[in-house]
């Protein structure tokens, strides 16, 4: 299984140097979305939400393969 690294870019840059072994990019995308949604909950619980915060997914030896903002993980309706 390829290894994917999930770097969180919010008010700081959290470099992931451990990574997760996952079957494919689709699984990595699901993992990133789950993480983002959890971090969104943390923000919302403190009364704010910053939609441009993001997670960059890097594949081992492959560079950044996908970048997802917090906004990408939500459907917002008025």
């Amino acid at each position, binding site marked *: 299984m390829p290894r994917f690294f999930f770097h*969180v870019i919010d008010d700081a840059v959290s470099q992931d140097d451990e990574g997760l072994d996952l079957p494919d990019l689709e699984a990595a995308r699901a993992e990133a979305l789950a993480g983002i949604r*959890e*971090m969104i909950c*943390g923000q919302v619980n403190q009364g704010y939400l910053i939609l441009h915060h993001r997670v960059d997914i890097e594949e081992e030896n492959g560079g950044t393969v996908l970048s997802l903002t917090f906004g990408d993980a939500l459907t917002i309706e008025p």
Partner: protein
Amino acid sequence: MDQVTISALLADGPPCRGAGPLLAKLETASPLPDDDRAALIALCRDPHDLGARRNVIREGERPDHVHLMVEGWAARYKLLPDGSRQITAFLIPGDFCDLHVTILGQMDHSIATLTRSRVAYIPRATMDEVTDRPRLARAFWWATLVDEAVLRAWIVNIGRRDAFEAIGHLMCELYVRMKNVGLADGHCFELPLTQEELADALGLTPVHVNRVLQRMRSDELISLKAGLLTIHDYRRLEKASGFNANYLHIAEQR
């Protein structure tokens, strides 16, 4: 070694150095007399070598042995129908994996090693002999009650703390437990857990755990490198995570 009795074990071979954590743990509450100590040392002789991420025992099994961690780390866990895993305890050297199965019979959860481990397989008959010793019976009861207290602390941790506090709380707990069995050097100890394993223990996602660990590093609270955790400012981490070691029932220590 199924048929070997305590008396036979005591008669043969040098004491096993691997018994250190078990002795330290069970003497937390009160010191034990030499013959009880010898019985515990005998339990740790000839442990089995297990690789990392190997099942020690699975839900539904009716083990013939009680398993005791001599070296390495293991975890209790439940698998959910969707394949996800909740870790309900981390087991370190000196911890019994399944002391209760001599009474309850069937395992209601599974246990797997996290690292390369040495695990003692103690036959039920030997456990019966050991628990005939009143002070050891009391020490095992103490250990079981503390396990329950830890579980209560984990419920509070998962239910009521944010990710930063929950991870900090778990680190403080593991530090105090490792120190109590002689496996911490200053505020530094082996924490061979992946972000995924921390996440599975705390009901978090690995991505979020990574974020929190980085924040703790940049706050200069901890270093975590190659499975070695150093807590740079224990008081501050304790305060930030609302940690009070009282539930571990260990005399005051830092």
